[in-house]
Every structure is written in C-alpha cells, then in structure tokens.
C-alpha cells in the first residue's frame, strides 16, 4: 500500500501532465504485476464492489472519535467527502504496516459474506494498520469513491512509456471487458489482438467552440451535423455478436433490445459511432424520455413501445474487420452513407446539414430546437478519428441556453472544494404572490461573487435547518439551462437540465423575477411533441 499511496499523493500533488506521467511510470517500475493491474483498474474507474455500507463506516469512525453524531455530520458537510471525513476524524494512532494494494483489495472483497459485527472488527483492525494517507486511500476504496485526476489519455501515455508499446494499441487494449479478477497484467499489455471481440475504440470527443465560427476558416473544409441530446455510443458487430457500449465505458447491449436487428443490418467486422436516442414517429424524443430507460434493469413491452430507441450513427471506425480510424472523415462519412442506405427505424444516419457560408450554418443552428438538438457538430473533412478530447478537428457549436430570472431563497454550505462557504443555492419563481422553488444551482459565479453572496447569506438568514439557511427573498440571478421538462417530483411541476447561474442580476428587484407561467410557456416551446 505504501507504493500506491505514494502514487496517489504524487498524482494529487501535481497539476501538471508530465509530473503525473512520471509518477505513474515510477509506480509501474516498483509495483508487482498484480498491484499494477489493480492500480490501472482503479484509475480507470473499475472499482471493487462495495462490501460495507458507508453509513456503518461513518458510525464506527465516530465511535472511535468519541464525538457526538451531529458533529460528525456537520464535519462531513464541511469536508464534503465521506472517506475523507472518516479519515480526518479517526484518532491519529496506528501501527506501521506494509501490506500490498492487492492484499487490501482482497481484504475488502472478503468482507462481503461477513456479519456486520465481523465486518466492524475487520475494519477497525485495518484502520489500526494504516497511517493517515493510507487510511484515506483505503476509505476511498471501501466506499467505492476512488476517483483521481488521471484521464484515460494520461494513463495510456504512461503505460506506453513504461511498456514501450504504441499509445493507440494501449488505448484500445484498456477499453472493453477486462477486469483484474480475470486478466493478468501481461494479458492486458502484451496479449495478441482479437481475443476480446467486444472491445470498443476510445471515443473521440469534441471541444465546445468558444471563438467566432469564422475562426474555423473556409466552410468548404467542414462537414456539419446536428448535435443530438442522447447518449454517445458505439455499436460493434464482431464474431457474429452485437455489443453496444456507452461513453461511460459500460456495456449496455441488453438495455436496448431493439438494436438486435443490427446483426442483420451490418456485416461482420463493423464498428459504428453515434448516439443512442429515443425516436418515435420519425421524431426524436427528449432526453427525459431516454432517462426512463436508462435506470431500468428490465425493459417492459410497454416501455419499448412508448420509448423506442434508435441509433443515430455519424461515423464508422471499423469496416470488414479493419480499423479505419486513420482514413479521412470525408471518406468514412461516404462509406457510412452506403452502410445506412437500407432504410431502418433503428439504425439511422445522422443527416448532414448542408451550408455554403457560416451565416447559413448559423441560421441552421438557430433552428436546433425544432430538431430537439443541442446545436451543431462541426468535423473537418480531412480529420482522422482520434482518442479522447482533442482540440482542432471536431467542434460542438451549441445553441445558447435558455434563461430565466429567479430569486434566491435557500443557501447551503458547499462541500469539497467550497467547504466553508454558502455556495449551493435554491431558486424560486413567482406563482401569484408565492415563491415556488424550481431549481438548484451551485456553479456559474466567480469566487469573488460567491464570497459576496456568502456574506450576504450570513446576515440575511431567516431560518436555519442544519446546513441550510432560508434567506430573505432579495437577490435575483439569471439561471441558464439546457432543457426543461415536466416533473411530478418537483413542487413547481418542472425540472431543468443543467441549471447554472449565468449572472447575478444586481439591477433587478425580487418582484421583477420571472413567474411559473413564464416557465410553463418555455416548456411548451421546447417540448415540441
């Protein structure tokens, strides 16, 4: 655990890419193969299953600290992270030990069948064997919240450097269905291609366009498509089998039974990139509809009928078993159009948006909401399909968000990085002379504005409920959001997608804020079904 904790600390202590790669390579050089494999798994979000309920961990840590529960609760609120709070609350004493990372992972896995009191005994022992930083890593592992600032790209770079294998090969191998329980480190890095048919390619992700559209140069060099509001996915047909991957690197084949027809639509050795999107009567449905399918374990016939899902494809990455990502996008697109020439309600080609000038494209973009689309995707005709998020060849040109002016009514202390400030706000709009809460937002203000609001909240508190304060309804903020939907779970009857504070409207009085009927009007415009 000492090596891994050092790796964790090193990664945590540098914001620079080169520093992170160096730390990873140093770790790979020191750690055993099994530990390396686990480290890679953990850093690519493959965590061991949770075997102890987090609230037990909090309870036991608190018992050890000898402090009242509420103090633990308040501390947790300030810290934001449970594993970290437990670590900070535990008594400092420990015995120096040096078990391996794999030892502790096996230890955590072995807890599963035990009774609660046996688990407790084991956990208390574990805490007694670890110093503060090791405890933190252990607590992160056991609460299943191990996350650290290492992108897949960075990991690929480090492994490529350590193992002296090409980056794109490593990137491909790291994806797909592997687990430290089944595979060995040697498998992962040095195995022959083709053993895992399900393996997807790393997704190429676009940056948002921030400059003027004209900065992209000649419109002739670009292909435009609509940007769909679904889930990014990859459809793979290999070895006579279908695999569907979502961008979160999750195998979701079983969630979309309608995709089964792909096996007859696509030939062996095909990989398509596109969007998983609910589609009915030749029109896309909202993301809200898709959400009704995401969470379900089993998909009922009724749901299949109400929310049928299509795959809107916009790229082909593998054809006849060949990786064609280095072909020009223009050529891949031509091939894709041929592949999709057969009409199907499940496999649809994302249509090209034709334009000659940037002005024309801007007009098309302005019509995005008519297509339930989030804006325009721009892809350079001669671009190859790259790994991860890269600048230059692919851009998303999103439509401006919807906005509404709302009144701040509750404030809650932030957590994590904003632990000591009131940073999480609830906003309301008018319904007659009542203020109805309709959105929570915690991003969009500058640090200085946050401090000002924090100070204001402290002197304008009306009531307190634990970490939440209700405040005088005086401050008005412009709330921007990406979408609006009906919701029976909210008092206001609506739910926003990605609400955030666009501006602090110091120029407005509370009574000038928008009303619930304004929001309902927006709902009508955007629902469009």
């Amino acid at each position: 655990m000492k090596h891994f904790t050092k790796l964790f600390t090193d990664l945590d202590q540098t914001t620079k890419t080169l520093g992170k790669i160096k730390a990873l390579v140093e770790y790979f050089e020191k750690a055993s193969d099994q530990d390396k494999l686990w480290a890679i798994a953990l850093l690519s979000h493959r965590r061991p299953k949770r075997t102890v309920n987090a609230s037990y961990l909090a309870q036991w840590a608190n018992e050890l600290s000898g402090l009242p529960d509420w103090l633990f609760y308040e501390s947790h609120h300030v810290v934001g992270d449970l594993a970290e709070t437990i670590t900070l609350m535990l008594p400092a004493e420990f015995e120096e030990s040096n078990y391996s990372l794999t030892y502790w992972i096996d230890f955590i896995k072995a807890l599963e069948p035990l009774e609660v009191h046996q688990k407790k005994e084991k956990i208390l022992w574990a805490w007694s064997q670890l110093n503060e930083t090791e405890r933190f890593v252990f607590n992160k592992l056991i609460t299943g919240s191990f996350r650290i600032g290492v992108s897949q790209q960075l990991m690929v770079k480090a492994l490529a450097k350590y193992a002296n294998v090409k980056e794109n090969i490593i990137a491909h191998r790291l994806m797909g269905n592997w687990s430290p329980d089944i595979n060995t480190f040697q498998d992962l890095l040095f195995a022959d291609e083709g053993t895992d048919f399900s393996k997807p390619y790393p997704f190429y992700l676009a940056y948002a366009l921030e400059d003027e559209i004209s900065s992209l140069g000649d419109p002739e060099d670009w292909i435009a498509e609509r940007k769909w509001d679904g889930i990014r996915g990859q459809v793979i047909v290999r070895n006579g089998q279908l695999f569907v991957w979502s961008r979160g690197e999750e195998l979701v084949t079983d969630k979309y039974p309608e995709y089964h027809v792909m096996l007859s639509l696509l030939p062996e050795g095909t990989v398509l990139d596109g969007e998983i999107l609910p589609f009915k009567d030749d029109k896309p449905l909202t993301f809200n509809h898709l959400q009704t399918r995401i969470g379900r374990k089993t998909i009922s016939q009724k749901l299949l009928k109400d929310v049928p899902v299509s795959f809107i494809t916009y790229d082909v990455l593998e054809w006849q078993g060949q990786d064609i990502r280095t072909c020009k996008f223009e050529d891949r697109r031509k091939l894709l159009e041929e592949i999709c020439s057969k009409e199907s309600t499940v496999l649809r080609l994302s249509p090209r948006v034709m334009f000659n000038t940037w002005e024309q494209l801007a007009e098309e973009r302005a019509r995005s909401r008519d297509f339930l689309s989030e804006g325009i995707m721009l892809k350079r005709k001669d671009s190859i399909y790259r790994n991860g998020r890269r600048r230059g060849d692919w851009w998303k040109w999103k439509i401006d968000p919807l906005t509404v002016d709302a009144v701040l009514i509750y404030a809650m202390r932030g957590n994590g990085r904003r632990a000591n400030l009131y940073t999480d706000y609830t906003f309301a709009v008018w319904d007659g002379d009542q203020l109805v809460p309709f959105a929570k937002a915690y991003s969009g203000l500058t640090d200085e504005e946050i401090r000002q609001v924090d100070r204001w909240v402290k002197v304008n508190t009306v009531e307190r409920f634990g970490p939440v304060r209700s405040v005088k309804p005086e401050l008005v903020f412009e709330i921007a959001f990406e979408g609006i939907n009906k919701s029976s779970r909210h008092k206001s009857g609506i739910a926003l997608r990605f609400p955030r504070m666009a501006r602090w409207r110091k120029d407005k009085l509370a009574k000038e804020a928008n009303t619930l009927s304004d929001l309902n009007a927006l709902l009508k415009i955007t629902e469009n079904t």
Partner: protein
Amino acid sequence: MDLLQFTDKGIYCAQAGVYLDPWKPVEKAIISHGHSDHAYFGHKYYLSTSIAMPVIKHRLYLQDNIETLNYGEIININGVNFSFHPAGHIPGSAQIRVEFKGEVWVFSGDYKLQDDGISTPFEPVKCHTFITESTFGLPIYKWKPQQEVFTEINQWWLKNKAEGKASLIAGYTLGKSQRILKNVDPSIGKIFTHGAVDTINEVMRKQGIDLPEAPRITNEVSKDDLKGALIICPPSAVGSPWVRRFLPYSLGIASGWMRLRGTRRRRGADRGFVLSDHVDWDDLNTAIKETGAQRVYVTHGYSELFAQWLNEQGVEAHEVKTKYEGELGEMAETASTENEDGTKNDTTTTQP
C-alpha cells in the same frame, strides 16, 4: 450590565468607555494584533502590545496616537484593569484581560498553543468569561507538530532545487511569512521575498526581531539566483503575472485550510502545507479548559457549532457575531494590503 458587550462597533467595555478590536471608528481601541480584521483604520486612540505596535503603526499610518503595554503590564481606565497576555498567534499578538471589581473577562483575539519559534508563546489566563475564536473549531482540524511540517517544506524545497525549479510558498503576509522564514532550513538555498512580505520583515527587523536574510524580488535579481531558491509570497500573488518570472516553479501554500483536500485542489497548489496560526480542535478545547471560565462566547469560525459542542460539555456557551472573518480566513485573502513596492492600496482584505 455585562463588563463586556457585543455591539455593532465591536466588543465594548462601558465602564471604561473602551472598545476591543472595533471595526468601526471609535474613541479608544485596544487592539489584540495587527491583522486587518482586528486592527481597523480610523480610531482616535490605539493601545497595543509593544511588540505589535510597529506593524500596526506602519499598516494604519498612525502617528503618535498609539500607546503600548508590555505583556502582563496593567493599565487602569476608570477602575477597570486591562492587560495583554501572549496569544502565540503572530509576534506581539495578545489576549486582552479585562478586570473590574474582581470579575475577569478574557478576549482571546486570534491564538494558538503551538510554539512557532517567533511569537511569544501562548499563556493561559484564568477568567470567569472567555471570548474565544473558533476559526478551526471542528474535530477535522488537527495540526501536526511544527517540526514535522517544516521537515515537509524543507524536503519539498530540496526536491524542487534538485529538479532545477524555484519553490514558491504562499502564506499570509503578516505572521505566516515570518514564521516560514524563521523556521525553514536556510542552508538549502537562497530565500527571497515578495515586496509586501519584505516590508513587514523590515519593520520587524527594525524592532529587533531576528529574521534570516531574504531579499525582496526586484528586477535586478537574476534568473540564475531564482533557480532552486525559496520565494515567500502572499496568497494574492499566486495567479498574478508576478509569479511568471519564477518558471519553472512548484507552488506550495501554507495554511490550516490545507487540511482539506478540496481547498488544496481548489487553490491549484502543487503542495498544501497544513500550517496554521490558529488553534486546532484539540488545543481549542484545552485552552478553554485551562481558563477555568464558566461562560464562553464564541466568535469567528464555526462559532455556532462550537458553542453547541461546549454547551453539551456542560460549559455555558454562546455564539457571537463579529466582523472577524475567521471562516473565510486566510484563504479568502483577495489582495494584499500592500503592493509589491510596499505602498498600500485600498482593496478590502479579509484576513485571519
């Protein structure tokens, strides 16, 4: 009537007509220490410890309207005895003891129990009523012994030096910066300071406080000199164009808030050193016990929570609202009171 009252101008002693650390202009102010949330502009008459005086005088442009007492010395104002006692927070910082007809109140100002090697160490003072800060009044805040923290800082500096980098360490201009300067290992390499830090250092050197040599950064300092050097600067300098000249560098921040991973990451530092001039949870509880006070008022920090905790421990405690900005504390400092060249600007600052 209580001997001390909490008013909208500050803590007030009506019997003597005197305020403690007032934040609005008053006739007579007794000042615990020179941090700007305690020592405000515009009072007619100031009283501080003799050690704190030069910095306060410098920061507030005072002429002869400040008088001083040594620690333990008593001044009687209309029958009330006032005296200063070491608070261990920064050089010259004091707790203020107020006694009238046998009743004793102590206002802690800001304080810590750890001996930092530069401030007169904290001394507990018996009292009936104790007004305490609670900047770090939650059990998650625990400090390591100072020596361990400086070992970390020295090792970080050595490593950076070996990699050909400068080590930029940010700490509050008054107090933290001098504590760092006094306790790092000067044999590792050259030490430089930001102008705002150097100005305070000069004031302190003049009054006889012994600080290692640490020239201020000017355009004359060569790039070669900076390689492998330690540069002490205020948090506000981080992120300003001023720091570019040190590239490549590693950035460390020294503050109690660095105890939380979230704050550490938010500040974009390579290293966070948990080094605070305030009491941690354990020391806060120890200090209160040692005063023997029957009643405690809790100011800046987690005052509401800490007061609740004390009440559950059987100590009568109340939360008091003041303008001491402990909760935002050191990390919220937006701009230095002094520019690089030592001149002052009037951006409002929030300081511990």
